[in-house]
C-alpha cells in the first residue's frame, strides 16, 4: 500500500496531499486485513517505534478514519465498527482519571495490550516476509531430478531389465533351434492312409502281387518316403490279413512280401 508511508495525521489543517492520502487509505479499505491491520498501518504514520507508539493518538486516528469513511459514505465492515467502539471506550478510559471502584482493567492495561497486539502482528508479518525470503525448494535449491525411487505414483510404471531384453531377443533369434521335434508329415504315409488306399485296390488283386506295388505313386523314388510308405503299407496289409480280407506270403527272409485277396469266402 503506497499510502502507508505518507504522513497521515488528522490535524485541523490537512494539506491537499494529506487529504488525498487519507482518502486513498479509505478507498483502499478493502485492502486491509481487518481493523488491527488498519491500526498497524495508522501507527506507522506516527513514525515512531511500535513500542513507543501513542495508543491515545492511534485511537484518535482510527476514530477520525471511521468518521471520514462515514462522510464519504463508505460502508465499513462490522468488525471495523466494533473496533471503533472499543477504541472510543479506551480513549475515555485513558483520558479520564481512574475510578477506584472499577474492578476492570485500567486504561493503561488495555492500551498496553493493544500495543502488544500491534507489535505481535507486525512481528508475524516480518516473520512471514523473512520466511518467504529464505531459499526455497525448487526456486533456489533443488531436489534430485531423477529420483531412483519408482515413486508411489498411481500410474503403473512398466520396466524391464537388460536381461529381459537380451533374453527376449535371444528367444526370437533362436526360435528355430527351439522348435520341438515334429514329424514332417509331407514324407509320412500313415497306416490309415495306406489302409484306405489298399482297400480300394485289393479287389483287383486276384493273384499274388508284390506289396511294394501298392505304394503310392512316386513314393518309391524318395528313400524317406519309401521307407514310410513301405512300413505303413505293410502294417495295413497285416491289418487286412487279420480282418481276413487278404493273404500274405514271403518266400524267404528279406524276400518280397506278396499279397492276394481272399475270395474264398
Amino acid at each position, binding site marked *: 500500500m503506497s499510502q502507508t508511508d505518507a504522513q497521515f495525521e488528522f490535524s485541523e489543517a490537512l494539506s491537499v496531499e494529506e487529504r488525498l492520502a487519507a482518502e486513498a487509505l479509505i478507498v483502499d479499505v478493502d485492502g486491509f*486485513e481487518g481493523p*488491527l491491520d488498519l491500526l498497524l498501518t495508522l501507527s506507522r504514520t506516527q513514525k515512531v517505534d511500535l513500542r513507543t507508539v501513542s495508543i491515545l493518538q492511534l485511537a484518535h486516528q482510527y476514530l477520525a478514519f471511521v468518521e471520514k469513511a462515514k462522510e464519504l459514505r463508505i460502508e465499513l465492515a462490522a468488525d471495523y465498527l466494533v473496533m471503533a467502539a472499543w477504541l472510543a471506550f479506551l480513549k475515555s478510559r485513558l483520558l479520564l482519571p481512574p475510578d477506584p471502584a472499577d474492578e476492570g482493567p485500567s486504561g493503561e492495561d488495555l492500551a498496553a495490550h493493544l500495543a502488544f*497486539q500491534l507489535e505481535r502482528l507486525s512481528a508475524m*508479518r516480518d*516473520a512471514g516476509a*523473512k520466511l518467504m525470503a529464505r531459499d526455497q*525448494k525448487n526456486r533456489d535449491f533443488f531436489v*534430485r531430478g531423477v529420483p531412483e525411487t519408482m515413486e508411489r505414483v498411481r500410474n503403473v510404471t512398466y520396466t524391464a531389465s537388460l536381461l529381459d531384453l537380451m533374453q527376449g531377443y535371444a528367444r526370437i533369434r533362436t526360435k528355430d533351434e527351439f522348435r520341438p521335434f515334429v514329424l514332417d508329415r509331407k514324407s509320412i504315409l500313415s497306416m490309415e492312409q495306406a489302409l484306405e488306399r489298399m482297400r480300394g485296390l485289393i479287389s483287383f488283386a486276384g493273384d499274388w502281387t508284390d506289396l511294394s506295388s501298392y505304394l503310392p505313386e512316386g513314393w518309391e523314388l524318395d528313400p524317406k518316403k519309401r521307407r514310410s510308405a513301405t512300413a505303413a503299407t505293410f502294417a495295413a496289409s497285416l491289418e487286412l490279413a487279420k480282418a481276413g480280407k487278404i493273404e500274405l506270403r514271403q518266400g524267404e527272409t528279406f524276400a518280397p512280401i506278396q499279397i492276394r485277396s481272399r475270395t474264398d469266402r
Partner: protein
Amino acid sequence: MSQDITEPVENAQNTADAPRESLFEAPPLAEQERMVEAVLFGSADPISLAELAGRMPHGCDPKAAVEQLQRRYEGRGVRVVRVGEAWAIRTAPDLGFLMQKETVETRKLSRAAIETLAIIAYHQPCTRAEIEEIRGVSVSRGTIDQLIEMEWIRFGRRRMTPGRPVTYTVTPVFLDHFGLETARDLPGLKELRAAGLLENRPMPVMGDISEEDADEQDDLFEDES
C-alpha cells in the same frame, strides 16, 4: 571384554550375542557412507534415519554414515541437509541461477496465507482462534485449506480446552521447502521469544484464558530444545 567370573550371567549373555554379531557383520563405515549416499541421491524427498536403517544391512549406523557424508559434501555443488528427523541432498542455493529450467512455478501465496503460515509456524501448535486473535480478522477456510493442500501445515493435537479445538502445526514438507532443519531454526525465533511476542497474552478484559493454555503452547519448542 573382560572375563569376570563373578558375573557369570552377564558373561553368558555376551557370548550368546557374539556369534550373532559376527554373522551379520555390518559393512565398514566407508561402505555405509556410500549406501547412504546412493539412497539420498536416489530420493527427492527426505529420508529418515529409520528408513535408512531399514534399507541398509543389519548392524549399520546410518546416523554416523550420514554425518560423515554431510561433511564430505561441504562446499560442494550439492549438500546433505537435515530436514526434521530426515536427511536429503539438495543443490547449493548459490547455484540456483543455473537451475532455471528446473524451477517450478509456485502459486503466489496471498498476504493472508503468508501471515497465517508464519503464525502457525511460530506459535505451533496453534488454534484457528489464536490465528484470528493475532491477525485481528477471521481466517478464511480457503487459506487454511490451501496451506493444508500444500502440505505445509497439518492438524496437531486437539487443545484440551472447552470445545477441544484442533490445532495446526507445520510439517516436514514445510521444513524441507524452506530449508529448515527443525522448527526451532525459524528465522528470528529466539528474538521473538525473548521479546515475549510468542506468548499467548490474554486480553485484559476477557481474562478467561487459563494459564495452562499458555504453557502448553510453548511445549513443542521447549521439548525440542
